Structures are given as structure tokens and as C-alpha cells.
């Protein structure tokens, strides 16, 4: 189906490169594409020949009536049957080429989506520091869709149009040269229209898109801030704000629609003028017996067949531009550099004891701006390490380094004496169970979420959940362990948090990382969790980011962070008596007593 008229055209930065990239994907299907192109070309030529044969029938009718003889029905029937067979062949070829190209382009889009989804997991996390999720999602949906929609139609239409124009020109030349040149006059005229109208319509289209963006942005913001609008009686302000943008949108929208809507009628007019001129010239030639009526008929049909692809040029070129721009965005993403390969890394640790050593670690998200300058610390097996500091001090950074989400610039991190850089990332990550600040759960049952990536019997699972004091909570939910979690399932933030904690318990990793794990759980529930956690952390080295003083106090080692730096380390008592940043932080809560 045709997708709109002159639509949004976005341009690729490097058209040639994007085209080459796309060709690489097409290459796997080169024979199929070649076959499709052949079918289109042959089919279109046969179609034009059928037009010629219909004209021959009319010629026979006219000469018969002019010569006042009986019509040669054998000739008419023969021509008609040949023409019919050409049309049938064209039909079969045409449809086959559509089917081939659809399959090819769908297979390519399948591959693109698959590659994007795999790429997501192979990119270093640092990539996502500067890339918004919305942007990546739009590649996987919009851009891939644009590719799917345009690829087959561009190939089909381009070759069909070219063959159509060439065959029409050949047919026209064989019939009458002066009339052919009259037809050619409409090319510059058509181009002029394209230039003028496209300039206007694109200008207003851009204005419209901007206005639409503003209006949608306003709607999103005001609807999201609904409570505030209500609480502060802001309705009159937001309403007039919105109306101003809505009016601007209206002004741009109708102009954009108007200009893009007059393109086709104007093309039609140029085509019609050429058509009528040729019809008139043909009529006089026919009276003068220079041409037969059938020839004139074939000619004016060819004029239509010549004009139609011409008017398609602008829409094809828009499709090509969109296709290349979309493809470029996809290729940019697929081409981003991945995490270093690590096939040569073989180090593993048998019977993990859980000593962790930070040895002169230097790290910065931007390698030129180190935020951890020279950090060394030793954690002995089974110790509980608390990481504290104000919001934004970079507490999660340390965790990210341990998990090898980010790689350090110099120094080393060793677990049981083995550098984590001598192990595969997956081996390192297996060493730690973790509970993150955001309670990420996927769509699926609670059971699937808890046994994530782990084979474990239902009985064991229940046992672990009982230990985590979450068994009761799960069973009280509709469906219990089989409850489907969806985006809008009504489980609270605290319940989600409990589930992620239980998930970490199921993992049963030798070491633990708790990233502000308890901050979303209410204090009573937290205490229950704390007990279970304490049982779990026995004998396990654990790293905890926490606000709660009770957690911090029980820690064997406290790392105090400020502005990304580790400014102090020691025990609660030691740090308090040192009278540094930690004691400031600690005392500030009870200063007024």
C-alpha cells in the first residue's frame, strides 16, 4: 500500500555509506533480488506489449471500416489471446516479484531486530551513559519498520518505473516522433512543480512537526504534573499555555496538508495537458491517415504510462531518503564498539573464600577525569562492607567496578588473589548476587522471576522464600507464585523490592552486593529482611550501600564517599573518633538534641 504522499523526509548524513551497509544485507539475497528485478522488467515489457496488441485490434477495426470490408476476426482473436497471455504472465511475474521482495525485506528486518537485541547486551554499560533508551527503542521499532516498509517498495517501484518509462518512450517513438517530443515537454514542467511545491510543503511540514512536538511535550508534562496543577490551581495558566501551542499547530498543520495535497493534482494536470495535446495531434494525424486510431490509442496510453512513474519519482526519492536515514541510524547502533572480547581469559576460582582487594584503583567515567584517584582496600572473607556518602557521591560506581560493568583505568581488583581482569566477565558476575536500587522484574510469573537464570525446584524455592519471610506475601497475592507480573500489576514498590531480594537469595552466590536495597522498603519490612539478610550474609563477603545507620554500624569496614572519591575508610567507632566527613554526616541527623 502506498504510504501517504510527500511525507516526512529525513536525510542520512552519509548516504553512500548507508547504501553500502544496506547492500551488505541485501547481498545474502542477491539471487532472489535479481530474480525479482528480472520478473519486474520482463513483466512490465509484456504489459506494454499487451497495450500495443490492443491498439492493433483497434487498428484492424478502423481499417476494416475505412476499407468497408469485414473485420478479420481471426487476427483480432489471435491478438487478443496473445495480449491476454501477456497480461496473465505479467500478473504472475508482478505478484511473484512482490512476494520475493516482501520475504527478502522481512528477513532483513528480522535480522536487523535480532542483531539490535543482541547488540544491546554486548555494548559496554558506558555506552548507555550518553544514549537514551527511547532512542534505542525507536531504532528497534520505528527505524526497522521504515526499513521494512520502504525496502521492497523502493526496489519494486524503481525498477517498474524505469522499465515503464523506457518501454513507453520506445513505443511512442515507434508510433510518432513529434508527438513524443511534445510529451517530453512535460518533464521540465513536472520538475518545476516538484521543486516549488516540495519546498513549501517541506517547510510547513517541518514547522508542523516542531509544533506537534511542542504540543505533545506540553500535554505530557502537564498531565504528568496533574497533582501540582490541581494543588496550585494552575488550570487557567496551563489551559492558555496549551491553547497557544495548539493554535500554532493548527496554523502549521493545515498549511502543511494543503501544500502536500496539491502536489498530485498539479502533476495530474501536467499529465492531462500532455495527454490531451497528444490526443488532439493524434486525431488530426488520424484524419490525415498518417496514423491509425489504434496507434493514437497506444500512444496516449503510453503518455499515461510515461507520466505516472514521473510523478512517482518524488515519492520514491522520499522513500529512499527515509530508508537510508533509518538504515543509517540502525547501522550507527550496530556499529558502536562492543566490550573487548575475552575468549583468552580462563581464570576461575574454585571454592570461593571471598577476599577482595582493591589495589591502587584509578577510574573515571570519562578516562580523562578520574573520580577515583588511588583507592586501595582489603576486604577479608566474610566481612560486611558499608559504602556511605551523600546522594550523588558515586556509591554505585564501586559496585559497577566490582561487577565489571565498567573497567578501571589502572590498578587492579582481586578476588581471592585472582585479578577480575583475568576472568571472563560472566565468571566475575557469577561470584556476586546483587540487589539493585531499581527493582527490575520482567513480565512473567513470580516464579520465573525468582528462579531467573537458575534451575531450582519449587520446594527449594519455597524454602528460600520462607527464609526471606516473603513466602507469605507471595501466597497472599492473586495466583501466588504463578502470578503474572505485568507493567500494571498491582504490587507495591516494597513488594517488588522483596522479590528482588529473594531472587538474589535464590542465586546463592558466594558474595553479595546490596545497592541501597532497602531504601524502598518500609522500616518494618526492612527489619524482617534485615534478619534474613544477616543469615544470608553469614560467611559471605558483602558490599552494602545504605542510608540506615544501624546497617552501617554493624559493618566491618565503612567506605566513605564524597564527590566520587573515597575520602575515608574504617569502622564506625574509628571514623567517629577521627572527626572527619563521616562524623559530620553522622552527627548532622541528631544535631539539635
Amino acid at each position: 500500500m502506498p504510504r501517504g504522499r510527500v511525507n516526512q523526509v529525513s536525510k542520512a548524513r552519509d548516504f553512500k555509506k548507508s547504501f553500502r551497509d544496506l547492500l551488505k544485507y541485501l547481498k545474502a539475497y542477491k539471487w532472489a533480488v535479481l530474480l525479482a528485478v528480472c520478473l519486474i522488467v520482463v513483466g512490465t515489457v509484456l504489459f506494454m506489449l499487451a497495450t500495443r496488441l490492443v491498439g492493433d485490434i483497434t487498428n484492424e477495426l478502423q481499417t476494416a471500416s475505412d476499407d468497408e470490408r469485414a473485420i478479420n476476426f481471426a487476427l483480432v482473436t489471435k491478438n487478443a489471446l496473445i495480449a491476454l497471455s501477456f497480461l496473465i504472465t505479467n500478473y504472475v511475474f508482478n505478484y511473484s516479484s512482490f512476494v520475493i521482495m516482501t520475504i527478502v525485506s522481512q528477513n532483513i528486518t528480522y535480522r536487523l531486530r535480532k542483531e539490535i537485541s543482541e547488540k544491546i547486551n554486548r555494548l559496554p554499560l558506558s555506552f548507555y551513559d550518553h544514549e537514551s533508551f527511547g532512542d534505542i527503542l525507536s531504532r528497534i521499532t520505528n527505524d526497522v519498520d521504515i526499513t521494512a516498509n520502504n525496502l521492497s517498495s523502493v526496489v519494486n517501484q524503481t525498477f517498474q518505473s524505469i522499465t515503464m518509462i523506457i518501454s513507453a518512450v520506445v513505443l511512442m517513438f515507434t508510433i510518432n516522433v513529434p508527438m513524443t517530443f511534445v510529451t517530453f515537454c512535460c518533464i521540465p514542467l513536472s520538475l518545476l512543480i516538484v521543486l516549488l511545491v516540495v519546498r513549501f510543503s517541506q517547510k510547513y511540514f517541518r514547522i508542523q512537526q516542531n509544533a506537534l512536538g511542542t504540543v505533545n511535550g506540553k500535554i505530557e508534562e502537564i498531565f504528568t504534573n496533574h497533582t501540582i496543577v490541581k494543588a496550585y490551581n494552575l488550570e487557567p495558566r496551563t489551559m492558555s499555555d496549551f491553547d497557544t501551542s495548539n493554535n500554532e499547530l493548527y496554523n502549521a498543520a493545515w498549511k502543511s496538508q494543503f501544500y502536500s495535497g496539491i502536489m498530485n493534482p498539479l502533476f495530474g494536470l501536467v499529465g492531462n495537458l500532455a495527454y490531451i495535446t497528444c490526443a488532439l495531434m493524434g486525431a488530426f494525424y488520424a484524419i490525415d491517415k498518417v496514423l491509425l486510431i489504434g496507434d493514437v490509442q497506444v500512444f496516449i496510453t503510453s503518455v499515461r504510462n510515461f507520466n505516472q512513474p514521473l510523478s512517482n519519482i518524488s515519492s520514491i526519492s522520499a522513500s529512499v531518503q527515509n530508508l537510508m536515514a533509518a538504515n543509517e541510524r540502525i547501522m550507527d547502533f550496530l556499529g558502536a564498539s562492543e566490550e573487548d572480547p575475552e575468549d583468552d581469559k580462563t581464570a576461575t576460582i574454585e571454592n570461593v573464600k571471598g577476599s577482595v582487594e582493591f589495589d591502587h584503583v584509578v577510574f573515571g567515567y570519562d578516562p580523562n577525569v578520574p573520580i577515583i584517584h588511588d583507592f586501595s582496600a582489603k576486604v577479608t572473607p566474610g566481612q560486611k562492607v558499608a559504602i556511605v556518602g551523600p546522594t550523588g557521591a558515586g556509591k554505585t560506581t564501586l559496585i559497577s567496578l566490582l561487577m565489571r560493568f565498567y573497567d578501571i583505568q589502572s590498578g587492579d581488583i582481586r578476588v581471592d588473589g585472582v585479578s577480575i581482569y583475568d576472568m571472563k566477565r560472566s565468571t566475575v558476575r557469577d561470584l556476586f548476587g546483587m540487589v539493585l536500587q531499581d527493582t527490575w522484574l520482567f513480565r512473567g510469573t513470580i516464579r520465573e522471576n525468582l528462579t531467573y537464570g537458575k534451575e531450582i525446584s519449587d520446594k527449594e524455592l519455597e524454602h528460600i522464600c520462607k527464609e526471606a519471610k516473603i513466602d507469605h506475601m507471595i501466597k497472599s497475592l492473586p495466583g501466588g507464585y504463578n502470578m503474572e507480573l505485568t507493567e500494571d500489576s498491582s504490587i507495591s514498590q516494597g513488594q517488588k523490592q522483596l522479590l528482588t531480594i529473594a531472587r538474589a537469595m535464590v542465586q546463592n552466590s558466594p558474595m553479595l552486593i546490596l545497592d541501597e536495597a532497602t531504601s524502598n522498603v518500609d522500616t518494618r519490612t526492612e527489619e524482617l529482611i534485615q534478619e534474613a539478610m544477616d543469615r544470608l550474609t553469614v560467611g559471605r563477603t558483602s558490599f552494602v550501600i545504605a542510608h540506615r545507620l544501624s546497617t552501617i554500624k554493624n559493618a566491618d569496614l565503612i567506605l566513605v564517599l564524597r564527590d566520587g572519591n573515597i575520602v575515608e575508610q574504617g569502622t564506625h567507632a574509628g571514623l567517629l573518633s577521627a572527626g572527619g566527613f563521616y562524623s559530620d554526616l553522622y552527627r548532622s541527623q541528631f544535631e539539635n538534641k
Partner: protein
Amino acid sequence: MLKLLKYFSLAQWIGLIVMLGLIFLQTQITMAIPGQLGTIINAVTDGQRDVIWKSGGIMFALAISEVFVIIIINYLSSHIGSGFAKTLRHKTFEKVQQFSMDEISGFSTASLITRCTNDIQNVQMTITMSLRMLVTAPLMAISAILKILQSDKQLSLITMIALFVLVALIITCVTIVVPKFKHIQKYTDDINMLARENLTGLRVIRAFNTEDEEEEKFDNTNKSLTHTQKVVENVMNLLFPTMNFLNKTLSLVIVWVGSYLIARNTIDIGTVTTFSQYSVHILMSFLTLSMVFVMIPRALVSANRINEVLQTQVKIRSGTGKTPAVADGSITFSDVSFAYPHGDENVLENINLDIKPGETWAFIGSTGSGKSTLINLIPRFFDVSTGKILVDGMDVRDYNLKELRNKIGYISQKTLLFSGSIRENLLDGNPDATEEDMWEALRIAQAKDFVETLDEGLDYNLSQGSTNVSGGQKQRLSIARALIKKPEILIFDDSFSALDFKTDQELRSTLSTLLDSTTTIIVGQRIGTIMNSDRIVVLDDGKIVGMGTHKELLKNCPVYQQIAYSQISKEELDNA
């Protein structure tokens, strides 16, 4: 869709009627052209040059006037489509502005946003594009059918057979394809959802080494989507080649059968030519019509979604608008119970509170204990199920909503600021605030220092979602916005959570010295934040399980003790 028609203005109706007239005119012009061509062909066989000149002239005139008419129609339809979208957008926006939390949560904010943006966009597209086709195609088909029926019965019969084949094909395609559209939509949503899930769970997925599982889930949906797309597209692919084939074959058969008719002298060459042109028009019209019928159901879904919003009755409305005798900021809860409109269980039960003017009350309890719900009842974000709430001695439901909310400075749990300058955001609190008022409010909210370090100061532009300031800074700005209002009642819904202990403490001590006469309600998680309040209410499962000062509660409320001990060690509490 029909229900939305009432939002057309009178001018739009007139435009619409004029447009219909013009469309009729356009079809008549289009239909007249093949007739002239037939006349020319017959004139050729008869050798009448003057007839050719005349018909040629008429054809030129027709072609040019046709374009003019189309351009005017286009002008009208652009105006009507965009204008209607503007009206709909305005009405929907206005309606949502009136919604209470109840209606908002019924729809969900995300869904309301889509309804007000994408859905209206869809309706507009359909109106500008399909409406015209919907009118033009049948008119064209009827005129063309009338023309051919006048000329020859046998040729008409052939055309009707071709038409029947086309319609049968269209119906078959549509019945196969339309149910599949739903599947495609679902798979596309799933693809989107899985990718989003993968992105938001990057760290967890890597920590659990489950990249392969995620990719497999994605791949399964990807395969289903690709397969369904192939089926749908290849069925839809049938339409255009078939249409071309039928068109061309029909012309061929008409000439072929026509040649026998010419031999019998029942018809002339010109008529045969004209005839085949009309039959092409008929087939084209039906194809166009079928496309419209594919487009309209989608627009109907959108139209219904918009209509749902517009039809929703707003439950919370202004009361009689009485004014209370005193305005001192007292709040009374008497036997208040509350259940969410679609929930079965009471979230709050038998709450009785008597908050005196100028007091500071704090509410604490576990997640889901109902503490945020309780304070949301005061500005009537929700209405009580039973019992009543009095502010300044008058039932909140009797107030004019605007007046009630003017009394209250509310700081939400999730900090919400508008894009725009800090100044504009503060003016939202009080449009008459002076520069001095603003700085004073910022000072109390502990935001003065950081605003001063900004080059633009008060004119610093906050981005949408205020991503260019930190969470703590956002919270302090929203507190300043409430303070500048100088309300009788201040409500903090867990609004200190993003502040570090130090700032939290400084802010509270400044507040308590300044706001002697302001009634202050605090919902909090941290004992440190609330321990100095005049009264602390402990909620558990929607019921009040303790009420008193910090010290009293420590002695006699087990729930409070549990919360407190998990945060502060026993000695410190005893010493406090």
C-alpha cells in the same frame, strides 16, 4: 466516530457541505473527459475537424477546472481536518484538566497522553484523507456505472463480472488480513516491551548472566512478528497486481467483444474506447473504497478512545462555595474511611484527628499503611468514602475547589516541576510574588545557595522532568514553590527523602522557627525527620495504632518502637 461529530463547529459544517458539493462537481468533470475522447475518435472516423477542435478545447477547460476544484477541496479539507483536531485536542485537554486523581488513575497518565496526542492525530489523518475518498469513490463509481449502462448492456455485463471478481478478492483479503493486524500490533508491542525490559534491566541481566535467555525471548517474538508480517503483506500484495490485471484485461475484452458489436454496427469505435475508460474508473473507485475501509477501523478505535475521555463524568466538583468564618488552618477528620473506587478494601478506617491551627503533625507507617492516601484527602484529590473532613471548621466538599486548594501548600512525593525558568515555577506558587519573596522562599527551602551559584539565577531554565538539577535540588525548589504561597496549611508528602541528613535537618529547623502559625503535615519514613513534631500519628494497615509525641510513642507504641529501633540505636533514642 459519530459521537465526535458534535464537536464540528458551524463553520466547519458549512465548509463540509461546500466540500461535498465541490466533490460532486469534481466527479462530474472527471466523468466528462472520456466522453469527449469518444467524440474525438468518432469525429476522426467521420473526418470532422471542427468537432475535434471543439472537444479538445472542452477537454482542456475540464482538465484545468478539475485541478482548481481539487485545490479548493484540498484547501477546505486541510482546514476542516486540522481545525477539528484542534477542537478535539482542546476539549480533551480541558476535560483531563478537570479530572480528579480518581479518573486519572482509571485511565493512567500514559494512556491519557496517547489519547490526547496519537489518537487525535489518527482521527485527523483519517478525516483529511479518507473522508474525501469515502465521498469521491462512491460518487465516481455511481456516475461511471450510470454512463456505461446507458451505452451497451453486453459490455456492461462484462464490466460487472470484473467488478464482482475485484470485490470478492478485496473481501477475501480483508477477512484474512484484518484479524492479523491485531496480532501484528500485539507482537510489535511485545517487541517494544522486551527491548525496553532488556534496556532497563541491563545491569541485572549482566549480573545474572542471562543475556542468552533475554535474546531467546526476543527472538521468539521476532520470529512470530516476521512470520505474521509476511503472511499479511503477501495477501495485501495481491491487490495491486490484480487490480492492474483486471483493468487491462477488461479493456482488452471490451475491445475484443466490441469488435463483434462494431461488425454488427450496434456500436462505434469511440464508444468502445469511452467504455473501457469508464470501467477502469469503476474498478479504481472500488479499490479506493476498500482502502478507506481498511483505514477507518483504526481511526474508529482512536475515536472511541477519545470519546471515552470526553464522556467521563468528573466526580470531584466544587461545592456550594461557602466561605468559613475563620481561616486559621485547623483540620478535623471525623470517622473517615476511604476505599479506592475500584478497590474492595478500605485503605483507611475510622480515622479521627483534630489538628489545631499552627500545629505540626507527622504521619508514619509502613508502605501501604495509607499515610499518603490520608493526606491526599485534605486537598480533595480523592473524596472520603464515609465520614468527613473539615478545614477551618467547614466540610471540604462544601468549598469551592479553588479556594480550598489556595489554603494548602502541597509538596508531592514525586517532585514535579514544570519546564521553564525557576522564576516561572515559583510564580506558579504565587503569581504576585516579588523578587524578594522568591529569594526568601528559596532561603527557607535551603535552595538559595545553589540558585545563587547558577549564572542565570532565577532565570535558569529547567528542562522537562527537571533533569538538569539534582533530585535534592528539585525537592528544595518544590518546597520553595509551596512556601511562597504562604498557605494556611503545608503538606509534605515524604518530601525530604532526596535530601541528605544535614540539609533535611537544617530545612526543618528553619521551617519550624518561621512557620509558627502555619499548620504543617509531614509524611515521613525517617524518624529523624519527624521526631520533633507536636503530634505523631502511627498508621498500620489503614488504622491509627498510635498517636502522641515521640517520647510517648517510644514508650507505648510497639509499631513505632520497631520503626525507631531499626533506624537509631537504643541509647541514642533514650538520650534524645
